[in-house]
C-alpha cells in the first residue's frame, strides 16, 4: 500500500513543500504589486489628480482592471498558503471571521465604485467615489494584515474563548501598525511609479510632468519606508529578526538583496527612469516576499515546519496546471498585444 493511503484525506500535500513556497512567494509578489497599484492609484486620484485631472482620468481608466487582476492574483497565494499553512491560516480566519468574511464584500464595493468613477473622473467633485473606494481598500488591507499576523501568532487565538463570534484581532501585536504602514507606503510608491509609467507613454504636453509627479511619489514613499521598515524590523520577535542578520542564510541574502534593489529603484527614479525603477521594484518585492516567507517560518518554528508535511506528488495534475497557465498566458499576451497594436494605430 502506498504510504499516502494510510493518511487521512487532506494530510498530504501534492508536491514538495519548496515548490509551493516558491510559487507562494512569486504569486504573492505579483499580487502585492498589482494591489499596490490599485490602492496607491486610488489614493493618488485624491492626492495628485493633476492640474486638469489628467492623472485621475488616466488612473480611473486603469484602476478597475487593476483591482480585477489584483483579486485574480490573490487566488494563487491564498491557495498555496492554504496548502502549506492552512491549519494556521484558517484558524486565524475563524477567530477573526467577521472582518475576514467581509473582505470580499469590502473589495467588491470598492471595485464597483471604481467602475462608477471611471467615466466621471474628469468631473470636479468626483473625488468622493475614489475616497470611498480607497477607504474600503484600506479596510481590506487592515483585514489582511490582521489575519496574516494572527496566522503566525497562535498565542493570540485564545481570544476566541472570550470572543467566539469571530472578532479577535492582532492589534496588540507590535508588528501590526508598522506592517500596515509598510504596505501603505509601498502602495503609494508603486502607485506613483505606475502613474509615471503610463504617463510616460502619453503624447500630450502634460505627460512629462505627470510622469515626474508619479516618480516623486515613488521616491517620497520609498524614503518613508526607511523609518517604517526599521520600525517593522525592530518590532519583530528577536529570533525572527535575527534570521535576517545571518541566522538564516537565504533570509539574510533576500533581505540584503531587497534593500539593494530598493536602493537601485530609488536611484533609477531619481534619474527619471521609471521603467528601470519598476524592474528593480518588482525584483525587490520578490525579495521582500521571500523575507516575509522566512519570517513566517521563523514565527512558526519549531512547532511547525512545512518540510515535515507528507507528500503525494502526481505529475499529471501538475502538468495540467503548468499547461493551463501557459495556454492562458499565451492567449492573454496575444489578446493584449492585439489590443495594444490597435492603440498604437488609433
Amino acid at each position, binding site marked *: 500500500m502506498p504510504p499516502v493511503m494510510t493518511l487521512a*484525506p487532506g494530510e498530504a500535500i501534492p508536491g514538495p513543500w519548496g515548490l509551493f513556497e516558491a510559487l507562494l512567494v512569486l504569486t504573492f509578489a505579483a499580487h502585492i504589486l498589482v494591489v499596490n497599484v490599485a490602492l496607491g492609484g486610488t489614493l493618488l486620484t485624491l492626492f495628485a489628480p493633476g492640474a486638469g485631472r489628467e492623472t485621475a482620468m488616466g488612473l480611473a481608466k486603469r484602476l478597475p482592471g487593476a483591482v480585477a487582476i489584483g483579486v485574480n*492574483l490573490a487566488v494563487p497565494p491564498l*491557495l498555496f498558503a492554504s496548502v502549506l499553512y492552512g491549519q494556521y491560516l484558517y484558524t486565524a480566519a*475563524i*477567530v477573526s471571521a467577521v472582518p475576514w468574511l467581509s473582505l*470580499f464584500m469590502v473589495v467588491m464595493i470598492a471595485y464597483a465604485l471604481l467602475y462608477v468613477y471611471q467615466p466621471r473622473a474628469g468631473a470636479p467633485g468626483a473625488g468622493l467615489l475614489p475616497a470611498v473606494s480607497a477607504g474600503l481598500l484600506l479596510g481590506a488591507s487592515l483585514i489582511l494584515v490582521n489575519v496574516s499576523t494572527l496566522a503566525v501568532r497562535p498565542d493570540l487565538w485564545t481570544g476566541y474563548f472570550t470572543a467566539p463570534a469571530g472578532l479577535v484581532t492582532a492589534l496588540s501585536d507590535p508588528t501590526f501598525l508598522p506592517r500596515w504602514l509598510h504596505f501603505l507606503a509601498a502602495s503609494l510608491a508603486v502607485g506613483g511609479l505606475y502613474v509615471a509609467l503610463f504617463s510616460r507613454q502619453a503624447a500630450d504636453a502634460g505627460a512629462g510632468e505627470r510622469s515626474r509627479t508619479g516618480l516623486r511619489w515613488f521616491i517620497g514613499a520609498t524614503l518613508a519606508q526607511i523609518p517604517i521598515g526599521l520600525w517593522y524590523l525592530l518590532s519583530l520577535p528577536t529570533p525572527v529578526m535575527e534570521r535576517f542578520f545571518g541566522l538564516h542564510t537565504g533570509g539574510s541574502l533576500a533581505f540584503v538583496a531587497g534593500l539593494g534593489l530598493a536602493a537601485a529603484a530609488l536611484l533609477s527614479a531619481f534619474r527619471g527612469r521609471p521603467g528601470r525603477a519598476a524592474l528593480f521594484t518588482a525584483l525587490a518585492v520578490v525579495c521582500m516576499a521571500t523575507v516575509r516567507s522566512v519570517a513566517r517560518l521563523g514565527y512558526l518554528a519549531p512547532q511547525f515546519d512545512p518540510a515535515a508535511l507528507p507528500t503525494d506528488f502526481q505529475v*499529471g495534475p501538475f502538468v495540467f496546471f503548468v499547461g493551463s497557465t501557459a495556454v492562458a498566458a499565451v492567449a*492573454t499576451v496575444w*489578446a493584449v498585444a492585439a489590443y495594444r497594436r490597435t492603440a498604437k494605430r488609433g
Partner: protein
Amino acid sequence: MDFPVWQLGAFGGGFWIILIAVLHVYVAHFAVGGGLFLVLTEAMARRTGSRPLLTYLHRHTRFFLLLTMVFGGLSGVGIWLTISLLSPQATLILVRSFTWGWAAEWAFFAGEIGALLIYYYGYDRLDPKRHMLVGWLYFAFAFLSLFTINGIIGFMLTPGDWPATRDFWDGFFNPTFWPSLALRFALGLMLAGLFGFATALGIGDEEARETMLRASCRWAVAAAPLLLLSGWWYVGALPESVRDFFLRRASEMAAYRAAWPAMLLAVAVGSLALVSRLPLALRRVLAVCLLLVGLGIVGAFETMREAARKPWLIEGMLWATDIRPSQAAPYEAPILPRAKWAKAHEVTPDNALAAGADLYTLQCLSCHSIDGPVRDIRKFTRHVGAAGLEAYLTGQGKLFTHMPPFLGSPAERAALAAYIAQDINKMPPVKDTPAEVTPAEVAIPAFDPEKASHLVLAVGELGVVAMAGCDGSFSLAVPGSGLRAVVVKRDVLPEAAAEGLSVRYAAPDGAKDPAARLDFWKYAKTLVGKELAPNVSVTGLSPDGTMAASGKLFTAAGIPVSPYEASGKVNPYPVFTVTVADASGATVAETKVPLAVSTEMGCKTCHGGDWRESGETGVAKPTAAAILAVHDKRNGTTLAAQAASGSPVACFGCHPDVGPNAAGLAGRQELLSLSAAVHGFHASYMAGLGEEACNRCHPTSPTGITQAQRDNHAAAGIGCPRCHGYMEDHAISLLNFEKAAGKAAASRLLAPLAPRLVATAAAVHPRAAWTQLPDCLTCHKDFSRPAKDASAFNAWTKDAAGLFRNRTEDTGNIPCAACHGPPHATYVAVNDYGLDVNNVAPMQYMGAPGVVASGKRCDVCHTIEMDGDVHHPNMSK
C-alpha cells in the same frame, strides 16, 4: 475538532455559504453561457450588419463584465473565504487533494479576465475577426473554468475511486462529472437567455429589440429540456444509496424535486410570453420574474445537491460537522477531551449546560442555526424535553442517515440535550414527580372454607390492557379486556365445574360507561371497519355480561374497559365482580377481579405535547399528530391528513398484530408486525437504556399512574430485560422473525442495532410477537426457585399454547394464572394501589397475599389436607 467553530448563532447552519454560493453560482454560470451568447450574438449582428444590434451588444458586454467580474469574481473569492470559515477541514482536504486543479482553474480565470477586458475595451478597436476570436477565447476559458471546478465539486458528492486510489483524476472525473458538467452548462445557456431578455428590453430600435428577444427566447427555451434531461442523467449517475436517499427517503427534498421541472416549465412559458406582443412594461416585469425563477432554479439545484450529500460534506470522508469519522472514533468515547476548541473538557454536575453548549458548537451549529433562517434548531426541538432529545441524539444517524451520528459519551449526550432544552428552548428541567395515587379500596368478598361449596378464580387475560387513548388520531389497541374464570367445586378431590353453572361479570359503577371519555366508539367505523354502539366492544361485549363456557373455563374476550371513570378520575384498576350462579339462579360463588387498563404511554417524551388526562396519562392530540407526521414523513403515508379529516386509522389495520386488542384485523402481511415495527424503530433511539426504556411506552413505571409491573419479580428487583432482553435485544428478536419471513423493512431496522445480552444479532432467537414470549420454566426449572442471576432471555415459548397465560397445571383444569395471578401481576403483586386490589383471590381465599393455595393452603379447594405435587412438580416447596 481541530479548528475553532465560528459561533454565529442565528446565522449558523450554513447561512453564509448558502447565500454567497447560490448568488455566485447564478452569476458564474451566466458567465459561461453568457460568454457563448456574446460571440454568437456578435456573429449574428455582423452577419446581418445590424448596427443597433452591435451597439446593444457593446452595452450588454459592459453589463456582463460588471456583473461577472465585480460580483462573480469577488463572490468566488467570497466562497473560498466562507468555506474556510465554516468548514476548514473540508477546505483543507479539497485544497490539498486538488491543488493543481484549483491552480489550473485560477489560470483559466485569469484568461477569462484578460479576454473579457480586451473584448470590452477593444469592442470598437479590434477588427471583427480578432474581436470574435477574443470572444471565443473568453468563452473557452470560462468553460474550462467550469470544467475544472465541476470536477472538484462533484468529488464532494461522488468521490468515485478516489478514496481507494487517492488519484487526482479518479476524484476529478468522478461518477457525476459529465452529467454535472452538462447540467451546469445548460444552466449557463438558460441564464444567458434570461439575462439577454433583461438587457434586450432596453434596445430602442424595435426590430433589433424583437430580434434579440427572440434570440434570447431560443436560448432559454432550448436550455429547459436540456436541464431536465441532464438532471435525470445526474440523478441516474448517483450511487444507489445516495439516489435512494434523494428520491425516496429525503422527504425534505420532495418540494424541490417537484419545483425543479415546474420552474423549468415556467421559464419556457415565460420566455415564449416575452416574445409575444405584450406591452413593454409588462414584459420588463416578466423579465425580472424570469431572472428570479432562474435564481430559484440555481438555488433548488444547489440545495438538492447539498441535501443529497448529507450527512457528508465529502461523501464518506467528512461529515457536515467538518469532523472525519476516523478522527471521531470511537464514537461513544467522550469527545470533549478531544475537542481542542471546547471550553469544557469533561461534563460535571456543575457544568452540564456549558459543556452542552460546547457540544452544540462542535456538532450542531454547522447545520442548525439558533433562531435563525437556516434549519433553526428551535423549530425541530422546541416541543421536546431533554429526555426526548437524548433519544433523538441516540438514534441520530442510524435509521435516517441525513445526520451524522452523535459523537460522545452518554453523559455528553445528556449535557447536549439539557443545553438544547434548557438554554435554547427555555424549558425547565423535568422532574420525575411520582404520580399521586390513592390506594384502592376493595371490599374483598367473603369466603368461608368451612361452608363454601364452590369458589371461583377469575383473572385478567393480560396484566394490563395498554392503549394510547388517542383514537381520534390513531388506535394502537382497542379497548377490550379478556377475563377468564374457573369455578371449583370444593371437595376432597375438587373438580372444575361448568355444567349447570352460569358466570356473570359486572363492571364497577365508575366503569360502566367507558365510551364517556374514550373516543374509540366515535371512530370505530374508520378504525376497525364497523359501527359499534357506545360501550359495546369489538367482540360484542358490554361492561356487564355473561361469560362464555369453554370446556371447564369461562371466558369473556373483549370486555370494554377504560382507565377513565365517567367522572374523569383516572382509575387503571376497575374491579369487576364475577358471580357464579347455579341452574336455579342461586349464587354459589363470587369474587372480584381487577381488569387493569391503561393509556399511560409516554410518547410525549420524544414526540412532544403533554398527557391527555389529568396530567397523568393518555396520548394527547398534539402528540399523536406529531407521531403521525413522522410516520407520514418517513413512510410516505397520509395518516395525519386522514386523522384531521375525521378518518383516523388503527395501527393494527396495516401492521399485522395477533394480540387480543387488534380487533381481529389481518393487516397487510407484507408489513412488519406492529410489535416489530414499533420496537424495531424505537430501539435505535433507546439504545443503551435499561428498563426505563420499557417504562417510556409501557405503563410500567414505578412512579407512573398505572404501575402495571407489580408482580413479585419487580419486588425482587428483576426488571424487564431479565426476561425480554434490553430494548435492542427485544427488538432484534422480533425483527429476526420478520426478516426470516422475508420482510425487507426488518433488515433496515436491524442494521443499526447491536444486541447487549448476546454477541451478535444472529444469536438472538427470532420470535413472533404475542405468541412467543419468555418461558417461565427457563428460570423456574421444574417449577423450582431460580438462581439469583437467572435470565429467561432468548428462550421463547414455542407457540401461544406455551404462554403463561394460556397454560394450565398438570391436571389440565386450572390455568396457571388462576392461582399465580395474571402476567406482570403475579402474586404477591404490589404497587401504590395497595395489596387488596392486586391480590383479590389470595386475600379472599387465604386471607393473605400469595400464590393461591401456597403455604400448604390446599384447603382453599380441598376439604381435607393434601400432600404431593399433583398440580406441578415442586409445588409443595
